C-alpha cells in the first residue's frame, strides 16, 4: 500500500490489531495460554502470574510517569498503599468492592495530583528525593492513623464480594487481575497514540520545545502523575486482596525500588517491557531458588542471595543491555521473523 494511505487510514497503529503489529499471533497465543493456566496449575504458577499482573499494572503507571513523561518517582509504594487501604476501608464500611476499587483509583489519582503540585517545579534528582520523602511520610501515616489503617498490627482483607458471588479462590483473583491488567495495558497503549501521551514524550525529551509547540508542561506532568498514581492505586487494591492482609511494613521504599528495577530491566519507555519486567521481578527469584537448589543440598536457600540476584541483573542490564529485556526480545523477534518486526510501544 502507498505511504499516504498507510499514514492516513492508519492501519499501522490506529486499530487494536494494528497496535499489536506483527506480534499479533504471539499476543493471541499468550492470551489463550494465560486463560488456560488455571487448568494445569492450582497454586504456585497461578499466584506468581497473579502478582505478575498486579505488578504490571503498577508498572504501567510508573512507565507512564518515568518512561513516557521522564519524571522519576521513588515513592510509588505510597500510591499502592493508598489504593490498598482505601479499598479496604470502603469495603469495610460496607460499600462493596466495585466502589472500593473505584475509590482506590480516584482517591489515589487525587493523591498523585497533590504530589504533582510541588513536583512540577523540581527536576531529576530533587524530584526523586522528594517522592522518596513522600513515601516515608505516608508510611508513618499508615502506622499512626490506626482508626483507618489498623496501624502496625495491620488488617486482614476479606475476599472481594460482587453481590452474592465471592472471589476468594486464587483462580478468581487471577482472572480479575489479568482482565484489569489488559485493560490498563490498552489504556496505556492508547495514550501513546494520542496527543496527551505524545506530549509526555515531548516534555521528557525537551521541555522548551514542548512549550514552543503549545504544550502546557505543568498540566501534562500533572496528568502523568495522576495516571501513574491511579494505576498504582488499582494495583494496590488488587494486591491487598491477593495478599489478604496489609500492614505498613509492606509498602516501604523496597517496593518502590522493586518497581523501578522492574521497568528498567524490562525496558524503559516500552509497555511490553513492563510485562517482561514484571515477569522478571516475580518469577526470577523462584527460578533462582530452584537453580541454587541444584547446587546446595537441593531444598534450602542461602541467606542474602536474593538481593545479589537483583543487584547483578540490574548492573548487567544497565551496562550491556540499556534498553532492557524488551530490546533483547525485539532482537530475537527480528532474528526469527526476519527484519523490521514491529515493536509494540
Amino acid at each position, binding site marked *: 500500500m502507498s505511504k499516504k494511505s498507510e499514514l492516513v487510514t492508519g492501519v499501522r497503529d490506529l486499530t487494536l490489531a494494528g497496535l499489536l503489529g506483527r506480534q499479533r499471533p504471539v499476543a493471541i497465543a499468550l*492470551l489463550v495460554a494465560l486463560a*488456560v493456566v488455571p487448568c494445569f496449575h492450582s*497454586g504456585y504458577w497461578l499466584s506468581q502470574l497473579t502478582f505478575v499482573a498486579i505488578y504490571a499494572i503498577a508498572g504501567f503507571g510508573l512507565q507512564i510517569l518515568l518512561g513516557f513523561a521522564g519524571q522519576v518517582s521513588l515513592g510509588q509504594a505510597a500510591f499502592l498503599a493508598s489504593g490498598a487501604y482505601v479499598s479496604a476501608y470502603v469495603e469495610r464500611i460496607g460499600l462493596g468492592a466495585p466502589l472500593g476499587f473505584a475509590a482506590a483509583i480516584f482517591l489515589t489519582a487525587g493523591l498523585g495530583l497533590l504530589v504533582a503540585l510541588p513536583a512540577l517545579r523540581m527536576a531529576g534528582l530533587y524530584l526523586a528525593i522528594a517522592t522518596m520523602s513522600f513515601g516515608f511520610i505516608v508510611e508513618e501515616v499508615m502506622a499512626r492513623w490506626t482508626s483507618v489503617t489498623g496501624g502496625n498490627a495491620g488488617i486482614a482483607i476479606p475476599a472481594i464480594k460482587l453481590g452474592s458471588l465471592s472471589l476468594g479462590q486464587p483462580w478468581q483473583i487471577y482472572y480479575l487481575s489479568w482482565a484489569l491488567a489488559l485493560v490498563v495495558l490498552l489504556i496505556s497503549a492508547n495514550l501513546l497514540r494520542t496527543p496527551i501521551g505524545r506530549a509526555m514524550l515531548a516534555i521528557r525529551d525537551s521541555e522548551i520545545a514542548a512549550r514552543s509547540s503549545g504544550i502546557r508542561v505543568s498540566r501534562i506532568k500533572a496528568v502523568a502523575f495522576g495516571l501513574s498514581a491511579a494505576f498504582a492505586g488499582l494495583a494496590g487494591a488488587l494486591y491487598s486482596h*491477593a*495478599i489478604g492482609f496489609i*500492614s505498613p511494613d509492606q509498602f516501604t521504599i523496597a517496593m518502590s525500588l522493586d518497581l523501578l528495577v522492574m521497568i528498567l530491566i524490562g525496558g524503559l519507555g516500552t509497555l511490553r517491557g513492563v510485562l517482561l519486567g514484571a515477569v522478571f521481578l516475580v518469577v526470577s527469584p523462584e527460578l533462582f*531458588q530452584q537453580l541454587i537448589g541444584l547446587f546446595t543440598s537441593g531444598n534450602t536457600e542461602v541467606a542474602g542471595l536474593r538481593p545479589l540476584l537483583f543487584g547483578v541483573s540490574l548492573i548487567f542490564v544497565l551496562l550491556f543491555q540499556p534498553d532492557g529485556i524488551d530490546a533483547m526480545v525485539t532482537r530475537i523477534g527480528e532474528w526469527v521473523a526476519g527484519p523490521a518486526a514491529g515493536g509494540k510501544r
Partner: protein
Amino acid sequence: MFRMPGARHAMRLTLFAGLACGAASAAFAAENQGITKDEILLGSVLDLSGPVASIGVPVREGQDMAIQAANDAGGINGRKIRIIYADSGYDPKKAIIATQKLVNDDHVFAFVGQVGSAIVHVTMPMIINNGALLLFPNAPIEEVYEPTKPLAFTMQPAFNVQARLATAYAYNTLGKRKFCAFYQDDDSGEQVLRGINEGLDQVGAKLVEKASYKRGATDFSSQFARLKQADCDIVMFGAVVREAAAAMLEKQKIGWNVDVLVSQPSATDTVVRLAGSAAEGMLGVNQMLPLDMIKDQPNVVPVFKAYAESHGGKLPDPAFLYGYNFMNLFIEAARRTGPDLTTQNLVKTLEQIHDLDLNFGMAPATFSATQHVGSLSTNLLKVVNGQWTRIGVLK
C-alpha cells in the same frame, strides 16, 4: 469498537477457556500430604535476606540441627525428615508464592517455624485452609491461637501477655508506681505497650510517659531526655535487640540510673554482649532462657560444640534456640503419634501434650483441645555481673 478481528476472536476464546478452567480448578485439601512411608516433608518460609534475616538465619540453623540429630538417630518411626526452606525476604508477595508452592506442588505436611509477623499473617489462611499444619511460628500473633484453630499451634503468645505479667510484677513486687514505656514503632513494640497498659489498668495506674523509635534508629537521646524529664521510676522496653542495647548505652550516657525491664526480643545474650556494663542490673522477661544460662547443661554442651565446629567456634545466636526447640517439639509430637502419622493424629497428640519440658531453655509446653498456645508463663530474668540469671517465673 473498531476493526480487530483477530483480537476479538481471541477475547471469545479467552473468556470461554477461562470459565471452563475456573470451574475445573476448585481448590481441594489433600489428606496426609507430605507423609510417605520413609519421609516426612516439612516447609518453612523465613527471612534469609531481608530486615529480619538476623532471626530467620539462626532459626534455620536450629531447625537443621534438630532435624540432623533426629535423622541420624534413625528418623521418626523409620521416617526421615526433609524440610524445604523458602526465603521471604520479608516480602509478603514472595511468602505467598513460596507457600503456594509448598502447599500445592510439594504438598508439605506442616510448616514449622515461619518467621515474621506479616509473613505468618498472610500465609496462615492459605496453609490451614489447604489442610497443612501451621506449627510454632516465630511471631507473636494472637490470631494464631485466638480463637483456637484446629490446624494451628504456637509456643509464642502475643507479647502483651508477658508485658502484662511483667508490669504486674513491677507494680506489686518492686513497688514501682511511675511507669514509662520505650518501644519500637511496629507491631511487636505496640503489643508490649498494650500489655503494659493492660497491666496498669488492673491496678488502676496510668502510664506516665512513652517514647517510640523506628526500626534501625541510631539515636535515642531525645526519647530518653523525654522519659527522664517524666521522672519515672521504671522504663518498660518494647524494643528489639540492637536498639535496646543502644538505648541502654544512651541511658548510661545521660547518667540516669532508673530500672529497666525489657520484653522477650531484647531479654537475650546479644543485648548484654552489645551493651556491656550498661546492661548491668537490667530486668527482662523471656519464655526462652538465654544461652548463657543453659550452655553448660550436659544435654546442651554437645549441641553447641557441634555448632561451634561448623561455625568457626562461634556460639549460636539466641534465636537458634527457637528453631532448635520448636523443631524438637514437632519431632517429639510426631514420635509420640507413632507410625500412623496423619494430620488428625498429630493434632490429637499435640492436644494431649502436658507440661512437656525439652530442657533446652524453652518453657514447658502444654496444649489442649481448647488451647493451642503452648505456654502463657514467662521467666523473670536479671543481669548480674554481665550474666542473665533467672530470679523467678511469672504466671
